[in-house]
């Protein structure tokens, strides 16, 4: 599946993912992976790996801007980093990329529920 990879298209995808990741402090990869798969025709496994490689420097820059604006609270950030690494290791061992559809539906539903809860 080779698709047109014009520079404008790639740049637009990059700007949008970076913007959302900076604005919401998350979600850059969630947008970047399907954009690469559906708009650029990148193989799904490669898209996942490339997205992490791309979002990493963007998150470093965004973290720095959040830090400059005093939005960083170090103790919980360090605890979450440690817990997150343990969890990510377990998650990667548990299931390698082939996430069952049922799990996605459960997490998707939790996200929708949390979204509604956050508005009210």
């Amino acid at each position, binding site marked *: 599946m080779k698709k047109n*990879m014009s*520079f404008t298209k*790639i*740049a637009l995808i*990059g*700007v949008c*993912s*970076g*913007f*959302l*990741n*900076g*604005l*919401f*402090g*998350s*979600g*850059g990869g*969630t947008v*970047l992976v399907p954009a690469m798969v559906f708009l*650029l025709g990148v193989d799904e496994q*490669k898209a*996942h*790996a*490339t997205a992490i490689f791309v979002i*990493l420097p963007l*998150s*470093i*820059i*965004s973290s720095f801007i*959040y*830090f400059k604006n005093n*939005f*960083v*609270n170090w103790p919980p*950030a360090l605890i*979450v*980093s440690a*817990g*997150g*690494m343990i*969890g990510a*290791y377990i*998650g*990667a*061992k548990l299931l390698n*990329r082939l*996430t069952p*559809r049922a*799990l*996605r*539906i459960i997490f*998707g539903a939790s*996200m*929708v529920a*949390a*979204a509604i*809860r*956050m*508005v009210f």
Partner: protein
Amino acid sequence: MLLFLISILSGIISGMGIGGGTILIPALTIILKLDQHIAQSINLISFIPIASVAVITHFKNKNIDFKLSPKLIVSGIIGAVAGSILSSFMSSEVLRKLFALFLFFMGIYEITYKKDRE
């Protein structure tokens, strides 16, 4: 302790390839009552060590597209700077509601997600 448990859970979810941060942030604001900006910065910072380890693994497995990534990184930096600055100008209330909207659509995407192989 609760914070540590939440972070392990969201780490497991990200390790499985579903957006972990998108669920970590509402957990931090709803359960631990953290401020929206602080919750977002926690996710950004914790992503750095986790992603670094993942990048090494993906690099060894030759899964990273090095032709595409420089263009995405350069354009992404422009977006990241703009998004982070815009975020810093917003009140936590407004940002929280906007985030909820984003989360809602991400959730719908996860629910309707279908892999070709399945």
